[in-house]
């Protein structure tokens, strides 16, 4: 099973959209860098992510949320991980795909 990494803002770039189109049921999606804006509640993107959460597991990198001042706004159900957690995820899933 794949871990998908999304590092682009979903407001600017289509990589989250493409990732969700190609991500299988039960795969993981990790938001890092400017991708963390995709993990936020009450945005124009939120409905797409909430829909995808029904059959995929979502994660977001804590330090990138904190740097951007958005730690408080994460959608309930998305797991916040630190770099150690990021490393663990890459071992728990079989393959890592970065949506650059």
């Amino acid at each position, binding site marked *: 099973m794949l871990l998908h*990494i999304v590092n682009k803002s979903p407001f600017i770039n289509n990589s989250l959209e493409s990732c969700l189109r190609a991500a299988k049921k039960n795969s993981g999606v990790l938001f890092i860098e400017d991708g963390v804006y995709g993990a936020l509640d009450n945005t124009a993107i939120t409905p797409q992510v909430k829909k995808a959460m029904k059959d995929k597991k979502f994660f977001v990198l804590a330090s990138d949320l904190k740097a951007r001042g958005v730690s408080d706004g994460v959608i309930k159900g998305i797991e916040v991980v*630190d770099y*150690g957690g990021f490393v*663990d995820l890459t*071992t728990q899933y079989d*393959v*890592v795909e*970065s949506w*650059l």
Partner: protein
Amino acid sequence: MKFGIMINEGPYTHQASDTAYHFTKAALEKGHEIFRVFFYHDGVNNSTRLTTPPQDDRHIVNRWSALAEKYKLDMVVCVAAAQRRGIADADEAKRNGKDADNLAPTFRISGLGQLIEAGIQSDRLVVFGD
């Protein structure tokens, strides 16, 4: 586990090199092995010793070098990508008729085969880029 790390963007301009550094450090601290760190595309610009960032900012090149020394990392810079962007060690500079070189210690220049080998030998290849 054994990790291969690929870095596709230069320092400061994109966060890729920062993220890769923190990931690599965290993996090492958890006892994982880093088979190789491979620098491609603008990622080769992480390997110049001429970088002088502002005093109040992180020194991305030196930070990689320090990590490499501590953990004996194999940090490989793609030769073709390096030539396009003006990164050269003493041998490369000589071969290309240049009067100077700029590769920082702890990095080495080699071919793309080293990336494929990292893909084959590592349990996970993790790519950081833009």
